[in-house]
């Protein structure tokens, strides 16, 4: 389905995850973060960059993998993206929701 965000229109699924990664831009990332009540800091951006790199490399994401990435540890990941960090961070990064149980 289509979704108006800022001045742009993006394609999202019923959970609000973008379905066309190429439509993503930093401005859209900022808007999506606002919807999750997150103020993006440079630290957040490092994680979003990492997530997008992994997505481009087609590496499946999990909380454990992020904890081992050297970018952020699990505790801080939960602090930066409270509630459901992997879901929230991937949504902001414009990549699909990871199908992971760990």
């Amino acid at each position: 389905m289509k979704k108006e965000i800022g001045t742009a229109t993006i394609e999202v699924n019923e959970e609000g995850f973008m379905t066309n990664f190429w439509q993503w831009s930093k401005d859209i990332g900022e808007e999506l973060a606002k919807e999750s009540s997150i103020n993006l800091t440079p630290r957040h951006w490092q994680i979003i960059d990492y997530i997008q790199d992994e997505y481009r490399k087609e590496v499946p994401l999990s909380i454990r993998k992020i904890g081992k990435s050297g970018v952020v540890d699990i505790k801080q990941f939960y602090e930066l993206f409270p509630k459901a960090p992997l879901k929230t961070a991937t949504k902001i990064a414009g990549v699909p929701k990871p199908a992971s149980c760990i």
Partner: protein
Amino acid sequence: MMIILSKATLENVYAAFVLANGARMEGIEAEVFFTFFGLETIHKRKLKHLHVATVGNPAMHIPTMVGGLPGMENFATTMMKREMKKLDMPDVFEFLCLLKDSGVKLWACKLAMDMFHYTKDDMFEDLDGVLTVGDFYNRAHGEGTHILFI
């Protein structure tokens, strides 16, 4: 999600851990209460040597008599651990650390601790404490709280 783990067979331990971690990943609070044999899961020395049960589980498709032969539990455990590794599943100790870092509270059951003569020094260092069953229920009084017994 309030999870009571009463067993320390590997398949039950992983079930409890995946449920607790899965809750946190969805933004749901989670706590685990380790009671009776479940305590071995947080016993510093014992947690590294947990096994799969090969007897009394028809879904293993191993006849009970064969499952009871020496070495069968070790064999099944090695196989299961290998498969878990392929799925990028952490071992028990690392999983406990992952749960702690994700904000899961870990509690030991006081009665079971007394029964097995364990002290806090025997247990996983990041344990949140030792509780009676009443204390645990009191933590679970919030609306919409679920208690799972494993």
